[in-house]
C-alpha cells in the first residue's frame, strides 16, 4: 500500500459554482479535470494524505491584511472567504502538528491583491496567503515567514503587503515583467526602507524551462532561505509557467514543478494561477501533491511531454545565471542598503499608480512610512481612485514600537474626515481594525 513519508494535508476546493464571468479563465471548469485526475489517481486514499474541508475565513481575518474599500462585503464574496479559509485550514493543521505539510488547492486565487483593495486585480480580490499568514501569526505567534511565489505572474499583491515587513521574506520567480502582466517584479524591487532586502524578485526570460527554474531555485532561492531561517515556508503555487499555458510564454512542466516542490519543501502550498486546465493543471497538481507527500513522482508527466521540445536555449541559460548572480549580490548588500535608507530622516514617502485590470479601476497612492530603528515603522496610505473615492489607511505593524503605535493612533484621530470617504486604522499590535466615515 502507498504511504507518504511526510504526512500531508490537502484542502481541495474547486468552487464548481463560481466564476468571474462565463468565459473567463477563472471559471467553474478550471479545476474540473484536475479533480478528475486527482480522484482517478486515488491520491486522497493514500495513507498519510488527509483531506480537509475548508473553514470560512472571517471578516476579522481579512481586516488583519487589507483595507477594503468601502467595506469587505463590497469587494469579496463567500467564495473568497472559502478560498482564504482553505489556506487557513491547512495552516492550522500544520501549526497544530496534525500534518507536516499541506496544500490548499483552492480558487479563487489571491496573489495580486494588495493591502488597499478597491476591487479585483489579476483575478484576485483578497490575498489568501496573507490572510492565512497573519491569522497564524496572531494565533500561534509565528514570526519569520518566507513566501516563495512560483506563479508565472509577478506576485505584486503579496509584495505590496509585505513591502515594509522585515520578518517576511517574499521571493517571486516569474516571467520578466517587460513581457507579461503585471509588468513589475524587477531585481531592484527590494522592499521599503525598513525592510530592504526582504523582497526579492527573480524575473526569468520567456521560454525558461526546467533547467532554468531549478537553477534559480538552487542558486538563488535556497541560499536565501538558508540565510533567512524562516519558521514557515509558504509556496504560492501558481501553475502558469507550464508550456501549455494560454496566458504566458514559459516552458515549465509537471516534472519540473514536482522537482521544485521537492527542493523547496514548503510547509504550506497555496494554488494561485494556472489556466491550461486540461493539459497542465491535472498533471502539475498531481506532481505537487506527490512531491509534498514525499512520494515517487517520476512517472507523472503530461501526455505530450517531450523534454527536448521545451528545452531552453543557451541564451536563456546565460541570462538566468546573470539574474541569479544579481539577486545574490543584492541580498549581500541589502543590510547595508537598509542602514543607508533609514539614515537620520524621520519619514519616507512613495507615490504610485495602481491599475485594477479585472475591475477597470485606476488608483493613485501616496504612502508615508516612519523610518523607525526599533520596528518596521507605522505606515499611512492616502489612496484615491478615478471614481473619486478617497481613503486614508493607517497600518501599525505587528511588532510596532511604542512611538509608532502612538503615532498611528494620533494620525487616525487627527486626520480631517471631511477630506476622505473613509479613514481606516489597522492596529496589528492589538489585532484591531477601526473605521471613521468621512
Amino acid at each position: 500500500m502507498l504511504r507518504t513519508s511526510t504526512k500531508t494535508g490537502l484542502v481541495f476546493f474547486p468552487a464548481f459554482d463560481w466564476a468571474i464571468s462565463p468565459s473567463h479563465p477563472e471559471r467553474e471548469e478550471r479545476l474540473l479535470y484536475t479533480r478528475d485526475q486527482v480522484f482517478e489517481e486515488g491520491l486522497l486514499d493514500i495513507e498519510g494524505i488527509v483531506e480537509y474541508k475548508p473553514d470560512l475565513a472571517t471578516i476579522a481575518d481579512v481586516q488583519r491584511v487589507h483595507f477594503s474599500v468601502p467595506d469587505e462585503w463590497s469587494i469579496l464574496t463567500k467564495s473568497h472567504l472559502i478560498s482564504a479559509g482553505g489556506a487557513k485550514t491547512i495552516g492550522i493543521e500544520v501549526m497544530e502538528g496534525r500534518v507536516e505539510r499541506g496544500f490548499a488547492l483552492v480558487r479563487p486565487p489571491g496573489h495580486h491583491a494588495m493591502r488597499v483593495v478597491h476591487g479585483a486585480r489579476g483575478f484576485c480580490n483578497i490575498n489568501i496567503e496573507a490572510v492565512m499568514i497573519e491569522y497564524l501569526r496572531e494565533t500561534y505567534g509565528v514570526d519569520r515567514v518566507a513566501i516563495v511565489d512560483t506563479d508565472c505572474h509577478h506576485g505584486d499583491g503579496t509584495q505590496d503587503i509585505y513591502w515594509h515587513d522585515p520578518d517576511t521574506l517574499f521571493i517571486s520567480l516569474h516571467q520578466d515583467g517587460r513581457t507579461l502582466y503585471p509588468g513589475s517584479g524587477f531585481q531592484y524591487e527590494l522592499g521599503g526602507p525598513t525592510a530592504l532586502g526582504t523582497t526579492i524578485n527573480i524575473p526569468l526570460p520567456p521560454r525558461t524551462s526546467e533547467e532554468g527554474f531549478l537553477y534559480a531555485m538552487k542558486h538563488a532561492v535556497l541560499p536565501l532561505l538558508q540565510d533567512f531561517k524562516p519558521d514557515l515556508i509558504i509556496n504560492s503555487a501558481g501553475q502558469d509557467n507550464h508550456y501549455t499555458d494560454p496566458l504566458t510564454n514559459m516552458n515549465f512542466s509537471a516534472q519540473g514543478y514536482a522537482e521544485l516542490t521537492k527542493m523547496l519543501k514548503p510547509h504550506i502550498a497555496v494554488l494561485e494561477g494556472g489556466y491550461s486546465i486540461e493539459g497542465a493543471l491535472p498533471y502539475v497538481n498531481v506532481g505537487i501533491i506527490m512531491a509534498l507527500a514525499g512520494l515517487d513522482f517520476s512517472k507523472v508527466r503530461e501526455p505530450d511531454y517531450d523534454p527536448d521540445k521545451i528545452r531552453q536555449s543557451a541564451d536563456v541559460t546565460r541570462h538566468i545565471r546573470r539574474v541569479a548572480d544579481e539577486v545574490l549580490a543584492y541580498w549581500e548588500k541589502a543590510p547595508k542598503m537598509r542602514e543607508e535608507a533609514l539614515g537620520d530622516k524621520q519619514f519616507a514617502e512613495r507615490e504610485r499608480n495602481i491599475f485594477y485590470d479585472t475591475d477597470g479601476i485606476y488608483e493613485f497612492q501616496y504612502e508615508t512610512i516612519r523610518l523607525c530603528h526599533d520596528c518596521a515603522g507605522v505606515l499611512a496610505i492616502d489612496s484615491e481612485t478615478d471614481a473619486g473615492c478617497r481613503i486614508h489607511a493607517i497600518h501599525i505593524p505587528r511588532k510596532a514600537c511604542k512611538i509608532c503605535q502612538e503615532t498611528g493612533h494620533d494620525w487616525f484621530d487627527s486626520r480631517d474626515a471631511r477630506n476622505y470617504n473613509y479613514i481606516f486604522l489597522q492596529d496589528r499590535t492589538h489585532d484591531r481594525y477601526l473605521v471613521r466615515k468621512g
Partner: protein
Amino acid sequence: MIIGLDVGGTHTDVVLLGSDRILRQAKVPTDQANLFACVWAGLDEVTADIPPGSIRRAVLSTTLTTNAIAEGKTVEVGIIVSGGPGVDPESFRTGRSYYCVAGSIDHRGRQVQSINAREIRRIASRLSSEGIRHVGVVGKFSVRNPAHELQIKDLLGGSFEKVVLGHQISGNLNFPRRIATAYLNAAVYPIHKRFFLAVRESLNRKGLSIPIYILKADGGTMNLESSLRSPGQTILSGPAASVMGSLPFASETEETLVLDIGGTTTDMAVLVRGIPLLEPLGCELGGYKTLIRSLNTQSIPMGGDSAVRIVEGDLKIGPGREGPAMAYGGPAPTPTDALFALGKITDGNAEASRKGIEPLAEQLGTTIEETAVRIFDRACNEILEAAARMIQRINSKPVYTVQQLLEGHQVKPKNVLVLGGPAPHFASRLAAMTDFQVKVVPQWRVANAIGAGLARNTCEVALFADTERGIAIAPEEEFYRSIQKDFDQYKALDLACELLKKKCLREGTEDADPEIEVIEDVQFAMIRGFNSTGRNIRVKVQVKPGLIPEYRKIAASLFERDPSESAARDADLGHGSR
C-alpha cells in the same frame, strides 16, 4: 411468503415472513468453517412443510465472501492494468500475477497510447500456463473510455472462467480502488458461485424453486444472476441487514443512529430521515479500499461476548471472543456476564458470571457488582465514542461547491435504535447516560433477518457526456452513444433514468416504477480560447436503499405480536432516562 436470512459472526438468523407478520423464526449457531451447513439448517427449519410455490423470494445475507477475503481463502487472480503516466501502478499490486501493460487514456477519455496486442497475448498464455482462471482488467480512466479494457478482454480469448472489467464495476473515478475491486470480484467469484448454486440446487431438490436474492453491502438486493456478474457487492453485507431491519422504526423526519450489538462486534450506521447514509466511494475491507457501494457503517470489535481483561490496571473489553458468556459455559468473563452479575439477565448461570468477574474485581480492589457496573459502562462508553467518531467523519466530508459548503448540513442524530442480543439492556443504560431518545428495535434478536427479507433492490447509474467529443457513456451499463451539440443536462438525466430502470429490472426489482434519486447532476461549459466548445456533463442517479412495500404491515404487527418482548422492552427502558 418471504425468507430473510442473515449469517452473523455468532448466529445465523432466519425468518419466514407472511404478508403481515413473522410466521417462523430460527437461530442456528454460525459455523464459519461450514457456512453452507448453517445456512441450509436455517432454511430447512423455516421451510419445513411449507407448500412449494408459496414462497415468493428468499433474501440471503452471508459472510461468505467477507470471510474468504479476511482469511485469504480466495483463488489466485491475474490482474492486468494499463495506467499510463501518474502514480506508479506497481504500488497497487494485488498479488503475484499482476501485470502493468502499455496503453493510456486521459481524463477526457482520449487515447494517449494504444495497447500492445503482443504483450497481452504473452500475458494470457502465461496466465493460462500457470492455471489462473480468473482475471481482472483495469485501465486508468476506463470509465471515460473502456476501449482498452474491451480490447484486452478480446485478446485474452475465451479460456478464462471469469474476466472482470474495471469499467463495469462503478462509474466513479478511482483507479487504485478499481483495481482492488476488480481483484476482489474475480477472487471471490468461484466461491460465491459454488455456494449459491448449491443453495439453489438444494432448495430445488426440496421442491422449493424460490427466486434467490442476495443482500449487498449497500442494503439493497440483487438476484442470483446479477450477483454472478459482481459477487464483490456481497462483501460486508452483514451490517446492512441490521440497518435495513431497523428502518421501519426510524424517524422519518429526523436523524437516527443505529447500533447493532452482536456477540463479537458492534456495528453502527446513521439514518437520515429513515434512509441510511452510503459511503462516498465504497467500502473498505481487509486493507482493500474498494468501489463497492456500501452503507456508511462503522464496526468496533466489541460485543456482548467480548472477553474482558485487565490491562495495566484498567478494564479492557475485546477485541476477540473466546466463546459465549461464562453464564452459558464460556471461558472468559464478558459484558453479558456483567449483566448477569447485575441481575439483569437471568436465563443462565449467574454464579459462573460472578466467579468470572471476581478476579477482575480483586485486581481493581472493588466489589463484583461495582466491577460489573464498570464493565457495562465501559462497553456503553466505547460504543458512544465510536459513534461520535463516525458522525464526525460523516460531517467532515469535503464538498466542492460554494453552495454546498455554505449549506453545510451537519448530521446530529437525536434518536438511537438498538438491536442485537443484549439490545434492551444496553438501550436502557445508553438512555440514562445520554440525551438520546433510545429505542429497542422490535424483534431485536432477528431484526437483521427481517431486514434482509424486506430489503428492496438498489441500483446506481453514472452517465458521463462530453458534447465536444460527441459522446455519452454509462460505463457500468456498457452504454455508449454518439451525441449531438444540443445534448444537455436534461437529456442526460432522462437517459440516465431510463438506463437505471432497465438495470433495476435486470437485477430483479419488484417495483416497475422505482423511486429515483438524483445524486449528481452537473454541467460545465467548456471554453477554449474565449469560445464555448461544448458541455461536460456528469449525472448520477440511484434507487436508494429501502424496503419493499410489505414492510408496513409487518412492522405494524411487530409492535403487537410479541407481548413478552415488548413487555421486557418497556420494563427495561422504565429505569432508563425517566
